[in-house]
């Protein structure tokens, strides 16, 4: 079934989107979709096209309009550089890159009525680009069915009570999941894009009560604090390893909320979700699987997963082993009855041949009460490869040099009790905040 047909099932007066403090109900939205389809039908029918729109609402109108009309749609984040855009759209065989809309999308009633609605039945491919942290972004081919396979319609007596917030980019896997989930359920979606403070403002103004974000983004929201006035029903975390500290802080701030940690990737689709508010996932899942996903641990200690529906394309098939498992690249370890994420295999710091996962050290440092937030990364060193260094946001900021010296010593001496010596940060830099990138994650690649 095409996306537009899911929307037509909802009551026409219910609010579907809120963007830049303006509400759009089902009727408004469908009129714009109809207009967009009418405008593009002759030019784009059964073609491959690339969407690279900055305006998130227009983007959502366009994916709804083009699903069923085009043969394949490539969804690219608007800030992607020109070279990658060109390379990916050529690989995708796009006949057009739509990066702005040349007609006013706000339909006047008379205009909408004059366009005739045509039925389209093409099964459109939805093509996403990986975030390309390890090289050029790659194309992953999904269908609407594979994307919505795990969308769960939240059971709530009155579905109008559910308001989702979107802080991810809708063109990437995590954001698209939020958009589709909310649209399918007929919930209101508050699109919160732009700078961090305007995102926070939009979430509060829209009275969001369900939100999916990375642990780094949640940490930032908690540090900022304004978000605490919202009564969350559902908190979803994904995209990065989730440590005890963030799970505990969220439970404390929002004791009545459900909390899901989603394990998913652009490559493998949604893997599974952990709902018990604890770090990692139960060890028993390695034997029995969960949500139709089988898992095992590779010799290199990375998590191998076999979801029941995989996206297609050579990028995926090349990465499958003989038994159909895909290597997630996430290093795991078993602690008691839990499988715990250590960090990305590709993100390890190499200290004289010893692999160090920055996430492990961050988890240790975050437990110190002086530390509000931290980023650990590698610094190039001619003698030993790399050294572990850390940027630290203090709970109580100070510019007093003597005081900072004492705090540095204290942090290092405590870290030495908890970590092997080569893992202890050799340099501490005090910063005002830890910057997160456009995918909501911490970028640790600033030095070697």
């Amino acid at each position: 079934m095409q996306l537009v047909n899911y929307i037509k099932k909802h009551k026409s007066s219910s609010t579907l989107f809120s963007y830049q403090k303006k509400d759009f109900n089902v009727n408004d939205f469908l009129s714009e979709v109809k207009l967009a389809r009418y405008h593009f039908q002759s030019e784009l029918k059964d073609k491959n096209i690339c969407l690279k729109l900055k305006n998130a609402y227009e983007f959502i109108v366009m994916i709804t309009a083009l699903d069923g009309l085009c043969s394949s749609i490539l969804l690219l984040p608007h800030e992607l550089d020109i070279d990658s855009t060109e390379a990916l759209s050529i690989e995708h065989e796009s006949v057009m890159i739509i990066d702005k809309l040349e007609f006013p999308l706000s339909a006047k009633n008379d205009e909408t009525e004059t366009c005739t609605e045509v039925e389209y039945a093409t099964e459109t491919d939805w093509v996403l680009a990986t975030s390309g942290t390890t090289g050029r972004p790659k194309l992953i081919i999904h269908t609407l069915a594979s994307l919505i396979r795990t969308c769960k319609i939240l059971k709530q007596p009155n579905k109008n009570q559910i308001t989702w917030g979107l802080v991810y980019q809708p063109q990437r896997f995590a954001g698209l999941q939020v958009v589709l989930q909310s649209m399918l359920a007929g919930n209101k979606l508050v699109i919160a894009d732009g700078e961090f403070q305007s995102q926070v403002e939009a979430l509060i103004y829209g009275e969001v009560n369900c939100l999916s974000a990375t642990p780094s983004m949640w940490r930032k929201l908690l540090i900022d604090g304004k978000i605490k006035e919202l009564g969350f029903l559902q908190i979803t975390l994904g995209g990065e390893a989730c440590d005890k500290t963030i799970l505990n802080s969220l439970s404390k701030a929002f004791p009545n909320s459900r909390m899901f940690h989603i394990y998913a990737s652009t490559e493998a689709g949604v893997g599974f979700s952990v709902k018990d508010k604890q770090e990692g996932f139960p060890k028993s899942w390695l034997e029995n699987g969960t949500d139709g996903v089988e898992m095992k641990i590779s010799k290199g200690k990375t998590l191998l997963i076999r979801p029941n529906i995989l996206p297609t394309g050579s990028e995926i098939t090349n990465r499958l082993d003989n038994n159909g498992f895909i290597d997630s690249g996430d290093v795991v370890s078993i602690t008691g009855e839990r499988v715990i994420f250590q960090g990305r295999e590709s993100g390890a710091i190499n200290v004289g041949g010893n692999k160090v996962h920055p996430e492990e050290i961050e988890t240790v440092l975050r437990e110190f009460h002086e530390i509000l937030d931290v980023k650990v990364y590698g610094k190039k060193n001619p003698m030993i490869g790399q050294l572990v260094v850390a940027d630290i946001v203090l709970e109580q900021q100070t510019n007093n040099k003597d005081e900072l010296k004492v705090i540095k010593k204290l942090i290092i001496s405590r870290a030495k009790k908890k970590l092997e010596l080569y893992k202890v940060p050799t340099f501490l830099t005090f910063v005002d905040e830890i910057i997160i990138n456009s995918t909501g994650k911490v970028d640790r690649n600033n030095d070697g």
Partner: protein
Amino acid sequence: MELRDKILEVVVEVAELSECELVSDFNDSTILLESGLDSLGFAILVARLEEELDYDPFAEMENAVYPTTFAEFVSIYSQNK
């Protein structure tokens, strides 16, 4: 502060950080390999000095030079300022 004393101060700090025990009579003629600092300690020392002094003479050298004693180590820093 004299360059030598500055470097010595950092050596002591790094020894503490990397849990190395410096030889008790550490002086200009101390052989570096016998000073008590291990390879992690030296790596931290060079990185720390680069931060303190704003240059890394080892990275700027065309031909690698390996100082044997502490005095030679200091002279590499003073000659390649």
